């Protein structure tokens, strides 16, 4: 069993998928409005199991990533419990994400390229914080933003895998798998909302991209090609949507596919720029 848990494939896919399914399910039973928090919680659990619990204060960017994510999860949960929504929730998310990015990026800001990377990351953070999810039946549908998260995390994971950091790849893919667990809970029937807890999980994908861009030799600029995934929800209105369960299920699946496409483009670009050779390790 321990050998199985040490397998990188299991650590990056099966384990976080199961953890995500279990945590979302547990929150579904305890407090349905917090179910989306299971994604970030699943990520943190897998991080602690695979990489280890970082020290406080964290000596490295990966440690800061963990504790910033934990802080974000706490903020998201408190905000959702308090019923904070709309622009106030967006502002809270933006402040958390910007502060986390600055905390992580500070040691790496020794060149113009690094500063430009940080500016781009802050712009992405603003998109994540203030982008509006798709609206169906007057409720906040979780499928589109969860699919966007899955796509962004896949893009970061695939790019890191091709580049120079297996641990960032594993954690990004774990975040994608955890999001996959949440999507499975909401397909074919959407059972949960997204809330600030869910949006925090998308913010974690941005933090992973920051560590990849600022602390490795990876061609992280290709991740910009994955950004259209954030707007997958807007495509939904152009998709045929039946009122029945089959129509809604097909629509949700289609949104997920549309979200993942830009991620695959980003991964393909990373592979092409690497000369077609993945990092051996």
């Amino acid at each position, binding site marked *: 069993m321990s050998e199985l848990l040490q397998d990188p494939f299991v650590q990056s896919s099966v384990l976080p998928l199961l953890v995500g399914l279990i945590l979302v399910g547990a929150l579904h039973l305890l407090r349905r409005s917090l179910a989306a928090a299971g994604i970030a919680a699943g990520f943190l659990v897998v991080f602690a199991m695979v990489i280890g619990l970082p020290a406080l204060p964290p000596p490295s960017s990966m440690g800061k990533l963990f504790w910033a994510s934990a802080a974000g999860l706490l903020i998201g949960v408190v905000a959702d419990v308090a019923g904070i929504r709309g622009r106030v929730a967006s502002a809270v998310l933006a402040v958390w994400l910007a502060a986390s990015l600055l905390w992580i990026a500070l040691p790496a800001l020794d060149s113009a390229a690094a500063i430009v990377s940080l500016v781009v990351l802050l712009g992405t953070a603003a998109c994540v914080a203030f982008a509006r999810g798709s609206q169906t039946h007057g409720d906040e549908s979780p499928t589109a933003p969860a699919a966007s998260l899955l796509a962004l995390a896949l893009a970061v994971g695939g790019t890191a895998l091709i580049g*120079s950091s297996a*641990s960032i790849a594993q954690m990004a893919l774990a975040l994608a798998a955890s999001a996959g667990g949440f999507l499975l809970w909401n397909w074919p029937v959407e059972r949960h909302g997204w809330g600030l807890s869910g949006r925090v999980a998308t913010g974690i994908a941005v933090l992973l991209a920051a560590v990849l861009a600022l602390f490795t030799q990876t061609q992280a600029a290709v991740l910009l090609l994955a950004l259209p995934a954030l707007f997958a929800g807007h495509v939904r209105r152009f998709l045929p949507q039946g009122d029945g369960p089959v129509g809604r299920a097909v629509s949700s699946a289609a949104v997920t596919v549309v979200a993942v496409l830009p991620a695959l483009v980003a991964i393909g670009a990373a592979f092409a720029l690497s000369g077609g050779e993945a990092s051996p390790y």
Partner: protein
Amino acid sequence: MKKTLFAAALFVATATGAVAPAFAAPVSYKIDPAHTAVAFIVNHVGFSNVIGRFNTVGGDISFDKDAVEKSTVTVTIDTTSVDTNHAKRDDHLRSPDFFNAKEFPKMTFKSTKIEKTGDKTGKLHGDLTMLGVTKPVVLDVTFNKDGVSPASKLETAGFSARGTVKRTEFGMKYGAPAIGDDIQLLIEIEAVKS
């Protein structure tokens, strides 16, 4: 009269160092990067051992040949200079998975104690700082020789050191134990008198 003159001459000679003192003082040396190698061996998933080195190493040695216990060693290694003869692997080693060279560009060793175990051998105790973590390590060190190098015409001292460290103790956990936790160190140093 002759005795007085002799005593005075002896006093002056001793005061000016013309007569050798009872104990030699420590001599300061600067590590010669061109003749220094800090190499490591790490097991790769049980198939073979990967050999790597750091190409940028510097430091100072204060060596007292007659009182080795009073000697000190300080070494600084540039982690970005890691070299295993494979560009992508080296990029990976510089990443947060291993040396995290962007955040921790230097690795340092500072001696704390030297135990003489033989005529030219000893145990060098010191603090190794890597990834922001400081742990004590012990190296088996051999003093090879000192003298004027026929190549550089400079006063040179040469040493060899061997040891093993556990990388996970410094927080470098990725891939362990499949990628070896025990890292063998092979160190060859020439230092030039400052």
